[in-house]
Each structure stands twice: as C-alpha cells, then as structure tokens.
C-alpha cells in the first residue's frame, strides 16, 4: 500500500528521463502505473467486502504519534479507484492533448505527484498525514493551474486558487487538531470506532467550523466557489482530472469520512444542507449563463459539489446512497465532458460555445460520446446519472428537515442542468455549421479513448446498477453512514414523484435551452453587475487590504532604522517580562551584602564606569573599547565564582568581538549626532527600564525556585554517563548535544548571512 501511494512520486522523478526515451508515447507509457494501481485497488475489493475496512500501518514519526497508516474501506476505495482509473485515461489524453508542448515532461511530473498526493489523501488514516497530502494537492494544483506560466492571467488564477485552498487548509489543520483532541487520537479509524459523543464536546462547534472552512474552500462551496472557474486557466487534462473528478472532491471526501463522527450535531447537518443547497443552485445558474465551454462545465461541477455536500447534510441512508451514486456518476460524466471540451478546443481553436455549431459531420465519434456523457449529466435514462438523480429527489422528498425547500432548489438546479447538458452536447454538434478558427476534424485516438470508456462505464452502470452496487457502492455508503446499509439501486422505480419531477425538469430545461440565445445577453448583464458585490470582489478587496496593511506596517515597524528595531524589541520584551514579574511574583529584594569582598565591589564599580562611558562617549573606538572592559569585568566575575570555562569563553569572545567591531569601524562614516535630545532621553528611559527589570528578575530568581534544579543530576551523572569530569563540556557535547548542534547551525547561518552582506556590498561598488 505504501508503494501504491508513493509510486506516483517515484515515477514523477523519472518521468523526464522516460519522456526522452518514449517520446510521443509518453502518455501511454506513464498510464501503465495508474492502470496497474486501478487493478491493485480492485483486487482489494473482496477483502473490504468481507471485513468492512483494512488498516495498514507504517511507522513514520512514532514519537509524535504520527504514523503513515492507511485506511481502506468502501469510501476510500471508491475514491482510490476513481483517482487511478480516471488518472489512467487522463495521462493518455494529456499525452495527445499536449503533444509537442515544450514543458510536457514537467507537466507529467506535477500530474503524477498530484495523483500520488490525492491517493495519499483519500487513503491516509492519520489526521496529520491527511493534512500533509491535502496541502500537497493544493500546491500541485497551483503549479498545474499556472502551467502556462508565461500567461499572466494563468498565474493570477493559480495564485487565487492557492490562496483560497491553502488558506482553507490551514484552518482545516486547526480543525483536525481539535478533532484529535476531542477524539483523543490522531487515527481516523480510532476516532470513527470510538463511541465518544463528539457533538457534546466543548470543542465541537469550533472543530466543525474549522473543518468545514477547509472542506468548503477545497470543494468550492459558496462563498468560496469563485476560484474554481478561474482554475480553468489550466490545460484541459488538468481541469478534467483535478478540478472536476478528484481534487475538488477532497473536501467532499473529508466531510463524508467524518460524517459518522461529527454528523450527529445539528450544526453539521444544517450547515451542510444550507451551504450545499446554495452552492448547488448558484452553480447551476452560473453554468447556464456562461458561454465558455470550460466555464459551463466548471460551474456545473460546483453545482455537483453543492449537491454532494447537501446530501451528506441530509444524512439519511437514502441520501447517503444518493451521495455515493452521484459522486461516481459525476466523476464519470464530468471527466468525459471535460475531455470532450478539450478535444473541441483543440480541433476548433475556440472555447466559446456560441462560435461552435454543426460539428457532428466533422467529429462524429466525439458527438456520440458527448451525447452519452451529457445524457448522464442531464440525468436521463438509461445512464447512471439518472439513477443518481432519482435517488437525489427521493432522498430530498424524504429529508427530515427542510424537505420542501431542498427539493425545490434541487429541481430548479436540475432544470438548469438539463439546459447545461444541451449547451455542451447540442449547441456545438447540431444546428448550423459555424465558422471556427481551425477547420475541425476528428480528435486523435488518445483523446477519445478516455471519454469513450468513461461514458460507456456510465451506460453499463446505468443498465446494470447491481454491478457497482454489489462490488463497492454498498460498502461505501456504509462507511459514510457509520453502519452497514442495504441499498437497492434500480433504473426503473415505477411511476412515482421523483420520476414526475425528472420529466418536469427535463421539459422545462429543454424550453430554457430553446430560449438560451435570447436569454443570454440579459443574464450576462445581470451577472456582471452582481459580480461587483460577489465573493470574488470580496477576495480582491481582501488581497488589496493585505497589501495596504503590509505597506503600512513596513513603513511603521520595518523602516530600516536599526535603533528603532532595538528600541521596540527591548521595550516589548522587558515590558512583558516586567508585567509578568509584577503580577505573578511581586517585587522581592532580599540582598545579603555582608559576605562581599572589596574586590567584588571593585569589579562592580569598573563595570558601572565602563557601561556609562560606553554609552556617553562620542568616539566609536572608545565605546568599543569600554564595551571590551565591560566584557572582561564579567569574565572576572565568572572566574571569581569558579566558572573557569565560562570565564575563558567570555574572555575570548570579548577579544574577538572587539577585533570584529574595530574591523567594521573602519568602514563607518564620521560620527554624526543625528538623534534629537527627545529621542536620546526616550532611549535612556527604555534602557534604564530594561536594566531595572533585569535586575529585579535576577533578584527574584535568587529567591524563587519553581522546579528542582537539574544541576545535581548533571553533577552526579557527568562522570558515569558522560565519561567526563568537566560538567560544562559534558552538558555541551553529550547531555544537551542537540542544543549545541542547533547552535552551531545558527552560527554557520549567521556567518553565511554576514558573508552575503559583505559580498553584495563589495559587488555594488564595482558596478559602473
């Protein structure tokens, strides 16, 4: 299983080399991997049927409780099969669609990495690894949307998709951590199996809001739906794979996965129903009002995602059956339709539906496949989409809450989707032959095999629904429900309310389609004016706000005046420390000076004089020298109180510091007094304050001991465990060696930083 998930990453590494060997057959070659993965996942079906679920464990970071465990049950297997199965055809398709593209190898690298991340996401059992794979899909999606990186629009859309999904991902992480606290485990299967009443936990509301924010952004629910149509800037194979069949379903997957644990709360089901229904209707409406074929499909994907979310929210056994069927049906027909759209774009040179027409003579095979897939989209018999839609209506009519409202929204969406199906299958292929930028002809075999197979599967599933049902769908419904479910899928249910609703929506949808040409301009006008207040406008305002705030805080806080940085750091640090000291401890001064010697007083006086001189003098060299005196004074104190190691180190460090400072001094301009008296008194006040707080802290530390000192442990064990008598050194290289390791890395980084600063300046001077 580990190999199955990671093989995508491995193949991604060698893909460029393979590309050089296989040339134009690269798509077919790479498709062998997802094809064999599909076979592997299919071979797990009997075991899942027998046992319900399998958990496979691989230790990753056992110390942190993070393991790379995999949970294979009906739900994850449905997703894994969709990802690898559709992925197979997408790779073949991409090989033909992007044939001769100069970055083809790079494309496959990202695509395979995405596929592996997506498989990892749906199969992971550990919440942290789910999150890691989740973000990996966001990042690979970003790179794929911006694949045509020379196009500024594509880069902008990619960044938008990344901000929305990765931002949601961060919120999701908070939600997953809350969930792990509530469920007392990072393991999904353990949380699902535990009988804790999570919806009564104090964190329930917070966790649900955070997790849903993550899922909604990823699965393009209203009001975050705007990034998905923009993601269509990606090459079509990407849109077909990531932005319809797989990645956008990650949010839906997680909601379905968590439904047994979180679904008992009202917040969960009501939020899902509300947002799902709103998304469903918005998506269907916007799909019908768009003219670019990919935009139409993108919005209809949003409609499907909304429907799926809503069905999880309804949560009855019937609704969950509808959920799984709709999920599978949608992936089949939407993947096919996107590939058809790509073929149309590829062969005609335009994405605009209004400029296509009468293509059925030039592209007969494409026409047949498009019609099959569109029938499934419209939910007509005998395709699988019909079964899914009938179940959808049935479960909504049966919904315990808001049945009438949800059914109305679903019927309205269905009417519009019938229109959408007509837009993608009737408009381009039938009617008058339109002039397209390229003379159309049939797409190459590699671009047709995918949509053909997917459409045929949709047809077979429609005619024989017991095939997928018995194999997997029933156990998938069981995993979403949390308990086994008996499902009864059939093409023909007799004449009942859902069938009448279907016929009604078909008739209305077709009449809407007939009037599409006349309706389009006015819908377009309404949408444009509405967009000014839409969520996307909000996104842009938000991004502008970030820039404004960043500019403001750079001006105020990061203005390049080092003295100000220092002032702020010192003031804040000692302000907070002083506040804590005052509130937690109070000021206690118990000094016993009876036991002090005259030479200690002498050193103290020396330190004081050196400090005052260092800050008052106008000579830089004098200041540095008196700082050196200060350091030597401290070293003397160390030696007096028998800490020879510290004393030696301090002496050496002081010597070298003075040398370094002197080296730097030569580069500085003449000393000029730039600060006003006010600024100097302000600095003096802050410095005095810091000194006073520090002194009080040290005095308080003498009296208070919160923990037993660890020194005795070191003294006892340094000889036996550390084989050394010098405790300081044993601590440095053995007991706390990890700290030292970190410190020398910091030291090295500082050296490289200084080096780059010096070098950069030196090079500037050589510039003409």
């Amino acid at each position, binding site marked *: 299983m580990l190999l199955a998930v990671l093989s995508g990453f491995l193949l991604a590494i060698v893909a460029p080399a393979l590309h050089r060997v296989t040339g134009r057959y690269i798509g077919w070659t790479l498709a062998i991997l997802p094809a064999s993965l599909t076979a592997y996942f299919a071979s797990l079906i009997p075991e899942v049927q027998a046992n319900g679920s399998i958990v496979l464990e691989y230790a990753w970071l056992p110390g942190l409780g993070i393991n790379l465990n995999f949970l294979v049950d009906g739900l994850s297997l449905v997703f894994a099969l969709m990802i690898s199965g559709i992925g197979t055809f997408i790779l073949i398709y991409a090989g033909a669609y992007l044939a001769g593209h100069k970055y083809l190898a790079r494309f496959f690298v990202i695509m395979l990495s995405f596929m592996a991340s997506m498989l990892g996401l749906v199969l992971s059992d550990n919440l942290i690894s789910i999150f890691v794979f989740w973000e990996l899909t966001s990042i690979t999606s970003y790179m794929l949307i911006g694949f045509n990186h020379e196009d500024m629009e594509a880069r902008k859309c990619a960044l938008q998709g990344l901000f929305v999904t990765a931002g949601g991902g961060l919120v999701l992480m908070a939600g997953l951590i809350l969930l792990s606290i509530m469920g007392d485990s990072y393991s999904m299967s353990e949380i699902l199996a535990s009988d804790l009443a999570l919806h009564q936990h104090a964190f329930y509301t917070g966790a649900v809001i955070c997790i849903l924010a993550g899922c909604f952004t990823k699965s393009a629910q209203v009001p975050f739906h705007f990034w998905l149509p923009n993601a269509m800037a990606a090459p079509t194979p990407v849109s077909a794979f990531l932005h319809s069949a797989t990645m956008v379903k990650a949010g839906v997957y997680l909601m379905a996965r968590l439904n047994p644990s979180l679904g008992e709360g009202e917040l969960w089901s009501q939020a899902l129903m509300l947002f799902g229904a709103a998304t469903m209707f918005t998506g269907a409406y916007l799909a019908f009002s768009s003219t670019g074929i990919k935009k139409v499909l993108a919005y209809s994907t949003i409609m499907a995602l909304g429907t799926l979310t809503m069905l999880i929210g309804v949560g009855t056994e019937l609704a969950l059956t509808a959920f799984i069927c709709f999920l599978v049906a949608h992936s089949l027909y939407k993947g096919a339709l996107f590939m058809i759209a790509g073929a149309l774009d590829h062969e005609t040179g335009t994405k605009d539906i209004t400029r296509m027409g009468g293509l059925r003579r030039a592209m007969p095979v494409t026409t047949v496949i498009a019609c099959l897939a569109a029938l499934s989209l419209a939910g007509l018999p005998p395709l699988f989409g019909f079964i899914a839609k009938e179940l959808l209506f049935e479960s909504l009519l049966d919904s315990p809450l808001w049945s009438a409202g949800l059914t109305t929204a679903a019927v309205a969406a269905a009417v519009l989707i019938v229109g959408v199906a007509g837009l993608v299958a009737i408009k381009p292929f039938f009617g008058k032959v339109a002039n397209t930028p390229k003379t159309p002809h049939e797409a190459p075999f590699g671009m047709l095999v995918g949509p053909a197979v997917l459409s045929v599967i949709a047809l077979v599933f429609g005619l024989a629904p017991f095939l997928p049902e018995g194999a997997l769908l029933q156990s998938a419904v069981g995993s979403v429900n949390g308990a086994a479910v008996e499902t009864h899928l059939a093409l023909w249910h007799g004449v009942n309310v859902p069938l009448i609703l279907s016929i009604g929506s078909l008739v209305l949808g077709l009449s809407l389609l007939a009037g599409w040409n006349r309706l389009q301009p006015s819908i377009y006008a309404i949408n444009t004016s509405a967009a000014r207040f839409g969520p996307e406008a909000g996104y842009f305002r938000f991004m502008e706000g970030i820039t404004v705030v960043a500019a403001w805080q750079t001006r105020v806080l990061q203005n390049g005046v080092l003295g100000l940085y220092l002032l702020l750091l010192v003031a804040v640090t000692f302000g907070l420390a002083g506040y804590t000291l005052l509130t937690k401890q109070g000021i206690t001064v118990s000094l016993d000076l009876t036991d002090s010697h005259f030479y200690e007083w002498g050193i103290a006086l020396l330190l004081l004089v050196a400090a005052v001189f260092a800050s008052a003098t106008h000579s830089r060299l004098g200041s540095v020298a008196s700082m050196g005196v200060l350091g030597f004074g401290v070293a003397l104190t160390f030696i007096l109180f028998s800490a020879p190691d510290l004393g*030696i180190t301090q002496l050496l460090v002081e010597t070298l510091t003075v040398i*370094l400072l002197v080296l730097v001094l030569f580069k500085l301009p003449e000393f000029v007094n730039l600060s006003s008296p006010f600024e100097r008194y302000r600095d003096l006040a802050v410095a005095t304050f810091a000194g006073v707080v520090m002194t009080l802290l040290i005095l308080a530390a003498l009296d208070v001991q919160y923990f037993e000192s660890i020194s005795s442990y070191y003294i006892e064990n340094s000889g036996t465990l550390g*084989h050394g008598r010098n405790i300081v050194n*044993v601590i440095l*290289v053995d007991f706390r060696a990890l700290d*030292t390791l970190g410190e*020398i*890395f910091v030291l090295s980084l500082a050296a490289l930083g*200084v080096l780059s600063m010096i070098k950069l300046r030196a090079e500037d001077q050589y510039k003409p």
Partner: protein
Amino acid sequence: MKSNTLILHTAALFIMPLQLMFSVFLLLRGHDEPGGGFIGGLVAASAFVLYAFAFGSEPTRRILRVAPRDLLAAGLLFAIASTIPAFLAGQPMLTAHWWELPLPGGSYLKLSTPLIFDIGVYAAVLGTIMTFVINLMESEE
C-alpha cells in the same frame, strides 16, 4: 589591512603555533578539564586573527589552506557524523558511544562520538570567525 611592525610580525610567527597547539590541547582535554571545542575554536581563531593582523588576509587564506566556508561546512558535517553510530544502533539521536584503544605502555586512548562532535564545534566556530574576519578585511582593501 596589514601591519608593517617588525615586532608584531615576529611575535605573531612565534605565538601563533603555540596558540594553535594550545587550542588543540584545550579541545582534547575539554571533557575532563576546562576547555572544549568552543573554547578551542575561539583560541584557534584568535591565532589566525593575530596572523591576519600581522600579514593581511591573503597570506592568512593560504596558511588556512581551506576556505573558511569549507571549514564551517566541515564542522557541521563532523557534528552530524557523530550521530551516525547512534543511528546505526537504533538509539536516540546523539547518544554517546565510547571506544577505548589500548596504547603501548598500558594506557588507553579514549575515543568517543562526543569528541567527534566537539571537533565539529571547533571547526564550526573557527570557520565562522574566520569567515567574518577575512571577508571584512578583504572588503576593505
């Protein structure tokens, strides 16, 4: 920057080898007596800094033989390398390992991963300071 004082030249030539020997002495005895990689590295650095003040940065580079940056990297690699025995034994990172090599005359040479680690600290400290000093001096010239 380079001094032309005969006294400094002569003194540097005599003092520097002593300082370097002393720094190695401090490094090796550090586990039992005051000393260690950090202090040893600082002493070695001050030796080279003295040399640099007397003769300039280019001769110092030559006498160092390796670039200060490489010294830095070597130090980090030594420190990391000291974790390998513990890694191979499946113990937590940086667990100390000790070996005693018998020497002629009945005494033993104590070798250990903390010593390798300390050598790493020594080289990293020396490399850091020499990176600072040599580059600062060169940017002046």
